[in-house]
């Protein structure tokens, strides 16, 4: 089966991000595929590459990045949710006339159209958080 994960909560403050990650690992381990991971609302904080986790905790940005690279997963961050929360890639940062950016590939900033595209192309859409 082809899955899409819709992540709605921030890492570190909500366990849903961990649950989503474990779900993703389980899905892939059973030979299924992940069409897209869509970060929406506070879920966009999962894309913050400035995350510095304590030594005894996992870096959750890095964990998603590593999984995406290993399995070629599409990680999409909702632009409307992201910009107001300071999650910007280099392009958006330049556009907003800022001199820093807070997310990098494999995270990709795009619109809600990507959620509906994922709905059309996935057998299951599973939401995490809230």
């Amino acid at each position: 089966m082809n899955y899409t994960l819709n992540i709605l909560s921030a890492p570190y403050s909500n366990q849903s991000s961990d649950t989503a990650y474990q779900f993703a690992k389980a899905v892939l381990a059973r030979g299924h595929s992940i069409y897209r991971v869509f970060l929406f609302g506070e879920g966009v904080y999962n894309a913050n590459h400035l995350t510095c986790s304590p030594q005894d905790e996992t870096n959750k940005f890095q964990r998603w990045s590593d999984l995406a690279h290993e399995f070629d997963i599409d990680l999409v961050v909702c632009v409307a949710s992201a910009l107001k929360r300071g999650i910007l890639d280099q392009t958006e940062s330049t556009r907003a006339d800022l001199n820093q950016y807070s997310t990098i590939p494999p995270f990709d900033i795009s619109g809600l159209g990507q959620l509906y595209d994922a709905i059309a192309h996935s057998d299951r859409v599973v939401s995490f958080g809230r």
Partner: protein
Amino acid sequence: MADNNVTKKVLILCRNAPYGTSTSREAIDVALAGAVFEQNISILFLDDGVYQLLNDQQSDAIMQKNQTKLLDSLEMYDIEQLYAEYDSLKNRGLHAENIHSATTILDSTETSAFISSHQVILSY
């Protein structure tokens, strides 16, 4: 496997009260985006979500955007019907005359059938 050309019936399930968190606004944003992309979208208000439907919200007093105005904008995108569960309203002392005029109220059996008639459910 998913057929790429099929438009799925998507239900936006609103379970949170307006204000206090961004959840209620973001749910309607998802619905509006779906309508823009010509998806088949329904919106059901359940639990505390029914508070979003209350008339006479005075959100200016708390410097927040008015949820009713946001719900009113749905009609322009051809989402003309809103749905609410009867028990959620009743348990909160709300009646049909207190809530958005575009709302259809469903009893619990109808609510179950309504939810089941959709292929994708996004809960906010």
